[in-house]
Structures are given as C-alpha cells and as structure tokens.
C-alpha cells in the first residue's frame, strides 16, 4: 500500500528525544570553538528554531538561559579585568590601581593593567559558555523534559512515578503555601522573616503528608502495587551486573587517574564498566509487560531533526581536532577572527530543524487563526 503524499506534515509534537539529540549536537558544536562569529551564529540558530517551533503555552526557557549566559560573559570579563587572566597581551586598555598582596597568595594579583587581548579572550570563553547555555535553553523550550519521563526504562519505573507525583503536587503545594500565608496575614502577622518561613513550612508539609497517604491508598486501590513484575533470575542478573559495572568503573577511573597504571586498566576498563552498568538498566526492564498510552512516533522528521543537530557537532569536533583555521581564533595579538564558510554552513544545517520538524498543534492552530 502506498502512502498518499501530503503537502505539509500534519501538526504534531516531535519526539522529545529528537530535540534533545539536536540540542546536544549543537551544544557540542559550540563547545568546540571560541570563534565569536560562529558562536553568535549558534545562538541565532537556536533562537530562530525556538521562535518557529516552540509549542504555545510551554514556558520559554530560552530567555532565562540567555540572561544567565550574558551574566556569565560579564562576570568573566569583570573577573579578568580585576584579577588578571591566563592571556597576557600587549595592548593595554587602561590600568587599575594594583593592590599588593602578601607572598603566600602566589600568582594572584588585584588590579593592574587591563589588556585588550585578556578581555577579548575572556569574552570569547564567556560567549562559548553562553552559546552552550542557549542550546540547552532552546532544547528545554522545544521539548519539555517532562515528556522525556515517559521513556525511562522500566527499572526506573517507581522512581519515575515518584517524579510524576512530585511534579503534580508541586503547584498544589505552592497554592497551599500562599493560602497559609494569606491566613497568617489576616491574623496580623507580617508573613516575612525566618520564623515565619518555619511556621509556614509546618502546616504545608503536614497537609502534604496527609495527602500523600490518601494518594498511596488510591494508588494501591487502582492496582499500583506489590505485583513484582520481574523474575528472580533477571533481578539477580541485574544486581550482579550493577555491582560488576560499578566495580569496573571505579577500577577504570583509578587506571585513568594514575599515571603508572597499565593502559588496559584505564579507558577500556571504564568503558566496559559503563556498558555493564547500562546493561543492568536494560536487563531488569526486558520482561516488563507494561504498555504505553499514546506513544510518540519516531518517524522521518525525528531522524532528520536529529541529523540536523548532529552535523554541526561532528563537523566542529573534527575541525577542532584537526586544527582547521578559524575554529580557535588567534588571541595574541588580537585580530578580527576569520569566518570559515564551511563551518558556517555546518552550523546553518542545524537551522534546517525548523522547517523539517512538524509544527506543534497549538501553535499551528494559533497561526491558522491569525492568518
């Protein structure tokens, strides 16, 4: 049977994992370079995709992350100006009064000459961090991490349930706190100060605990419960794999950290231990018979969006490893960084995620109404 080609993909939510792969790829790309033009491009791409494909009503995490990023740039520049940085340049912008420090604070200085090269290096590093934060913020805005909770392996089912309970109860607790506070205000208390917080916490928490027992009763009556879904042998296997994997990881870490350990004890051991531990997560889940209500499909759009994020990540990682010009611009003396077109093209590929991904339903509805 052939599927009918339709002109535009129907509005639906993209699989959250696809957005996280996309964001991780872009963040890796940002982490590999300090070229300010490339980094600004990364932020622009992330911002544009958020503008195009953020579902209506989802809190926009992009802006707070952007503000934190700007703060990081400013903090870096101020600290380098005050304390001096790893990059010592020749072009002195201005001199701050230098405060002599005692001998034991070796290497630390307060004040002194502020060089153009030092400030620029700090700004580039700060910008790199800001760009990575922007990628994370974009991902948080595009695919609410809550939706990822559905995909925890069944070994983590109980923990996942506890998190869902927490996320459902948190807004109610905030409401409770506001109500208790209003009640205390009506009785003439200010509602501020440390002792007030303590008085607020007690009724809110006691109420919440009462409610949790009701919740537990209703969970049990609806069949959440004691039925152990895994066989004894699979549980024992998972436990053994966990311990073995953790032991391998610890040994591998020792090998990686110690200079004299044989090579085999290092990274290979670490990888083997991690694999073992990850296998433990899967083994316990293999026989789980639970089914999901309304799975998110993983279709062509998901593959394309993931690939669009991975392309810049891979290209920039290769470029940084093989030292292409323009990935890490020259710091001393300060010059205008070049703009390598191949890397610009690679980062621009990530922007394709916006046209490739289907429009989320509520946003599509809003656009339809607007037009």
């Amino acid at each position, binding site marked *: 049977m052939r599927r009918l080609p339709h002109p535009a993909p129907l509005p639906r939510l993209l699989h959250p994992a696809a957005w996280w792969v996309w964001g991780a790829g872009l963040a890796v790309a940002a982490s590999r370079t300090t070229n300010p033009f490339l980094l600004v491009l990364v932020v622009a791409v992330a911002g544009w995709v958020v503008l195009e494909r953020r579902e209506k009503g989802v809190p926009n995490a992009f802006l707070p992350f952007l503000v934190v990023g700007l703060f990081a740039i400013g903090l870096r520049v101020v*600290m380098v100006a005050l304390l001096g940085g790893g990059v010592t340049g020749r072009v002195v912008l201005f001199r701050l009064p230098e405060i002599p420090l005692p001998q034991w604070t070796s290497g630390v200085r307060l004040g002194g000459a502020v060089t153009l090269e030092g400030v620029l290096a700090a700004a580039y590093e700060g910008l790199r961090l800001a760009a990575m934060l922007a990628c994370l913020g974009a991902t948080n805005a595009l695919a609410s991490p809550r939706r990822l909770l559905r995909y925890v392996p069944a070994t983590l089912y109980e923990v996942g349930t*506890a998190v869902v309970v927490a996320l459902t109860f*948190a807004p109610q607790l905030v409401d409770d706190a506001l109500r208790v506070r209003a009640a205390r205000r009506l009785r003439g208390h200010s509602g501020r100060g440390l002792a007030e917080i303590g008085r607020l916490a007690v009724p809110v928490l006691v109420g919440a605990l009462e409610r949790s027992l009701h*919740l537990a009763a209703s969970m049990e009556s609806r069949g959440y419960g*004691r039925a152990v879904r895994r066989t004894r042998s699979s549980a024992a296997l*998972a436990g053994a794999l966990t311990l073995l994997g953790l032991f391998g990881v610890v040994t591998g870490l020792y090998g990686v950290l110690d200079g004299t350990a044989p090579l085999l004890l290092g990274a290979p051991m670490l990888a083997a231990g991690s694999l073992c531990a990850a296998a433990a997560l899967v083994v316990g889940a293999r026989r789980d018979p639970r089914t999901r209500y309304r799975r998110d499909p993983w279709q062509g759009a998901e593959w394309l969006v993931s690939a669009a994020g991975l392309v810049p990540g891979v290209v920039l990682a290769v470029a940084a490893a093989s030292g292409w010009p323009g990935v890490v611009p020259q710091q001393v003396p300060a010059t205008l960084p070049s703009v390598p077109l191949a890397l610009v093209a690679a980062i621009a590929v990530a922007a394709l995620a916006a046209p490739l991904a289907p429009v989320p339903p509520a946003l599509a509805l809003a656009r339809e109404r607007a037009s």
Partner: protein
Amino acid sequence: MSGRSRWRTAASMTLVLAVGVAAFGWPFLAAPGSQVGQLGHGTDASFVFVLLMALMCLVLLAELSSGGIDAKTIAVLGVLAAAGGALRVLSAGTAGLEPMFFLLVIAGRALGAAKGFLLGALALLASAFLTAGIGPWTPFQMICCGWVALGAGLLPRAAGWAERWLLAAYGLVCGLLYGAVMNLWFWPFMGSSAPAGAGYVPGAGASANLGHYAVFYVTTSLAWDLPRGVLTAALTLVASRPLLRALRRSVRQARFEAPVRFAP
C-alpha cells in the same frame, strides 16, 4: 528490605561514592602523565565525567528501587520531592540560597539513609523539571543533594535539643561543602579564561591546583555559600522539631507492612 539487598545497596552506594570522588576531584587526583591529563586540556575530561555521572545517577536510582518500592513510600517521596522543588522554585530569585536544603536535612533524618538519598536526588530532579533547568549539571546536583540527605540519615542518634543542634550544624556544613564540591565539576572547564592563579592547570600537581581552587572558591562562591549554610542552619533550628514529629508520624502511619497472603 532483605539482608542481601541491603548489603548490595550499601556496596553500590560506596562504589558510586568512589566514582563521585573521582568525578569531582579529578583535577587534584590526576597524576601527571595519566590518561586524563592527556585528554585535552580539561574540557574533554569534563564531558566524560558528565556522561559518567548521568549513568551513575540512573544506576543508583534503579538499584535503590530494585526491591520494589511500595505505593506509600512513593507517595511520601513524591510529595516531599514536590515540597523541595516548590521551595526551589519560590527561591529562584535569590540565586543559590536554596532553602531546599533544610527540608533535605530534616527529611533525610526522618526517612533514613537510603530513602534520604532517593529523596535528595528526586527533589533536585523535580525542581529541575519545574524550572526547565536540565543541563549537564543536573546529575552532579542530584548526587550531591542525595549525599546531603543521606548524611543526615547517617548522623549519630540524638534526641531533643541535641538533635536540633546536630542537624543545624550539619546543615551549616552542608551549605558550605555543597558549593565547594559543586563548583568543581565546571572549574576545569573554565580553562585559560579563569583568573591568573585561580584556574585549573593540567599537570601542575595536586597542591598547586588545590591552592588555585581555594583562591577561586573564596573569590567567587564563598559569598553565596556562607549565607546558604547559615540559612539552612537557622531554618533547621526553627523548624526541625515540628517537622521531624510530623514526618516520623507519617512514616509510622505508612508502615503497615502486614504481609498479604492468599490461601487457596
């Protein structure tokens, strides 16, 4: 919890503690010429440890819940994690003050070590979901918060005034230590842009890097950590008595573990 699973939990906790020590403290532990020292200048190693800590988090959560958690424990954990998350959301304006800690200390004390760890990790995760602030720092924070609550559960027995002051002192220490430990995961990542004498220098040896880190800590984060520690201690002193009573009461209420058997 049966004896064997208790033993297994303790073993995996200890192993993850060792992994955590390595993941946080590798700038000081890496010997010159080791494989981590060769892994680029710090940033690549940071990535490896982010992935490793995320895996450790999942494995430990799975291990702690492997015996099957009953509905009451899940409900209590979920509600307490919600309270922790709500506290963190409410305090989002005061960056880093984290009144959540006092709840973790008190609840960890009432619930015991293993459930305390679960609560700490879940409360942090819930708050990260609520503020949409998931990032590479989340696994580190989850494990650290878990340790805070776990430590409260492992404190020696005490009652009355002694317990209040013990918990308050523990809260103060935690507030300070948490900042000192949490800075470590991104400190090597700052690379050459850290101020002179306060950045990670690969291959410079443990004592030099410890000195640099001390400078970094005092100049950047002590101003946040000290108020946090004091706030945690003060809140614990004020609220620990009624909260402990309420928590212990509900834990006792939730413990009707009469085994149910159906005979044919």
